[in-house]
């Protein structure tokens, strides 16, 4: 028995029928075919599925699609400007080589934007602590931390 939900995803209104037990990440990936949001674990530890729900970073594997009724959801596909200009955080990840295989990257970037916007993270230790919920296996975090600091500075301008 499906539930009808209406929400906004990357600025577009969406109305779909979902099962009651459908996770938000499955709705995003399988129903909306927005495959930039990734699934890296099954215990809500890795953060690869992080999106913004009403402007706050949220692990979309830890929330039902039905709970997003009426919400404003932004995925990595919706972060850059409409003309394709990268968000300052995306640009900083590129400039600082803050990604390698790219799999954790969407979640990492979405978390990074939130931790700058809402937690005021600037220093290396603040950024490292705040990124605790996102696992990267490639970069050793060295360049991710630099990217978040550079992205934070660019967002402040």
């Amino acid at each position, binding site marked *: 028995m499906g539930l009808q939900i209406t929400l906004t995803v990357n600025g577009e209104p969406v109305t779909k029928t979902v099962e009651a037990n459908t996770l938000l990440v499955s709705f995003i990936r399988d129903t909306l075919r927005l*495959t930039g949001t*990734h699934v890296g674990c099954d215990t809500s530890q*890795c953060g690869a599925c992080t999106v913004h729900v009403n402007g706050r970073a949220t692990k979309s594997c830890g929330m039902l699609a039905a709970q997003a009724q009426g919400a404003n959801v932004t995925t990595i596909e919706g972060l850059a400007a409409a003309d394709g200009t*990268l968000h300052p955080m995306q640009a900083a990840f590129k400039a600082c080589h803050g990604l390698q295989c790219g799999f954790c*990257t969407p979640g990492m970037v979405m978390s990074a934007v939130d931790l700058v916007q809402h937690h005021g993270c600037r220093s290396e230790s603040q950024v490292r602590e705040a990124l*605790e919920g996102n696992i990267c*296996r490639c970069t*050793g*975090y060295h360049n991710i931390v630099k990217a978040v600091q550079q992205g934070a500075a660019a967002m402040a301008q």
Partner: protein
Amino acid sequence: MNARQGFIGQKVERREDGRFLTGKGQYTDDITLQGQTHAYFLRSPYAHARIQRLDTSAAATAPGVLGIFTGEHFKAVGGLPCGWLINNLDGSPMKEPKHPVLADGKVRYVGDRVAMVVAQTLDQAQAAAALIEVDYEELPPVVDTATAKGLSAAGQAVHDEAPDNLCYHWGIGDKDGTAAALASAAHVTTLQFRNNRLIPNAMEPRCANASYDANADSYTLYVSNQNPHVERLLMCAFVLGIPEHKMRVVAPDVGGGFGSKIYLYGEETALVFASKTIKRPIKWTCDRSEAFLSDAHGRDHVSHAQLALDKDGRFLGLKVDTTANMGAYLSTFSTCIPTILHATLLAGQYKTPKIWCEIQAVFTNTAPVDAYRGAGRPEATYLLERIVETAAHELGLDPAEIRRRNFITEFPYATPVGLTYDTGDYDATMRRAIELADVAGFAARRAASQAKGLKRGLGYSAYIEACGIAPSSVAGALGARAGLFEAGEVRVHPTGKVTIFTGSHSHGQGHETTFAQVVADKLGIPMDDISIEHGDTGKVLFGMGTYGSRSLSVGGTAIVKAVDKVIAKGKKIAAHLLEAADTDIVFEGGEFKVAGTDKKVPFAQVSLTAYVPHNFPHDKLEPGLNENAFYDPSNFTYPAGTYICEVEIDPATGHTTVERMTAVDDFGNVINPMIVEGQVHGGLAQGIGQALLEHGVYDNETGQLLTGSYMDYAMPRADDLPSFTVETAQGTPCTHNPLGVKGCGEAGAIGSPPAVINAICHALGVKDVAMPATPYTVWQAARAAR
């Protein structure tokens, strides 16, 4: 910017980043095909059991089920092959029990594949799997590496073919000479080691999507894999008997590998097999819990080592006995890790005249163990750099000085364990590391820590590794069942734009950027005029893939050789156009020129002439400008360097903080320092992870994996690590490839674990601390040292 020097050596931002940063990457799970179906694997809950009864009848009629496959379906096909034959000391071959696609009458580790259910949806497949009835007769499991062989008396053979659980007993070096060196030495340092089992954890879990086209009688497999041609070869030729030209393997964007995606696994093999029966595409995506159980693990060696020294600290001999855990089955390259990639590295950077190493490889009821970032070389480096540092402390020598006294300084240098190093300058990298790490300031920092009640220590590691396993003839003589060359193709289009096809595979390494930098410089054309294609057997002529830090030194060289052929043919076309002799044409800055004149023709005009051959030397040349090359190196490459770690320990809690991690690497020439440094950063994180955090633990009684999620297996996170000090600039170019490159992918994971543990031992004033040096382990060591 000079065109010849334009891109090589520059920090060029990566061309692949745009798609990854905007969610446009295409990983295997992102691909959904028309008529997609889904597979779920029923896995063994027991480490060791006979399957008494397997009844799929209830599951078969469950909603949405399209097919159920068990070991019965695969009785007629081959097992998953092992790619490297190791012979015993007596010359007899290793034990090589069949590795079935799905369990055949017996399960041998928790997570072993028992059945595959294919259904319309994943939920239906999973629900149906719960209806499969299996009666298991539990058997006592063999778990612990050190005692696996000794358990034979209890009738616990993992495989009937190996009643003592021994896969092979192999050795290398000079046994008698080493024994004599130990007997006559002024000092012998002895250490026991357990190189902890690691679980690779690429962030993208394994995934496959197989389909069968009845009209063409051909298969397509999308798979998260590091070497699609090898995957195809192994699956077609050794298991399913599918002609290779009827099989296309595509490894699209791959979210990390670290070795774990080299291998042919049963899951994708079962998918391909079933796709012909189901007549629809079948997708399987591993969840993380399954990945912990079923990905090939890494390391898991137990070793005993003795280093013989004279009174001045000069090494006289090294004796190593290692037991290596193979797990339940022989994964694709499992057998060569403790032997060819471990024992041969035991000379390290040193002139140890006598070395003897014996390896006993054992079967256990645990997940198969195979290459994980570094593969054998981290185990060798850990053993050697721990025992060298320990010897220094025992003899009252400075750890840098004992190394300096023993460094190899003349090249080429033939080690007593089979390798010939072509070049290096070990003292230079160590001196630079000592500078960068501010070793001179350590005493003051230690005093400051002491004043706070904290312990501070400094540890060295001077590693060497061997990359780009080669040449094929030598590898073959050592038991390799595959060639170890690489292939490249340069397809010049009529307008002078270029598509490069490489058999290497990028799963984070940035080949689309680095390889384009190389080709842009060679051809004197913009990087935007070059695209790099990889990861598709339908496009790329052949390939051996990416592992062992081989992509640039082997794969890049194949591309360079193909580019050289393009230039050679281009010179002949240019000579015709310029009415000059072939031998008078030089190619520089993207132009073919008649030497000593101002007559010239640009690259794009030559390419256009090749495809619109109105005015063309048809009597001498074929039209077109498209060349390929295979490159089989004449030797390994030997990256080397010195890592220095500085830790601070709170003895009250046992918590270790890595305060400084300095890495100076000699990778030979560097194409893109930004990417190379990134590779080192990642390797350092995995090495520090091994030293402090990560441990794949099985329960010895039950064989259950106790570290089966990110709640239990301690992955390094951002706040576990410091920023690193990394330098790769000064190097000795490799002497036997045209780029002078050595490989950088694994160094960080190889060099760092002993540096960390040496630093902890130094801080606490103890001889040994086991990896991973968790707070509890360190706290115990600190208490014992009081």
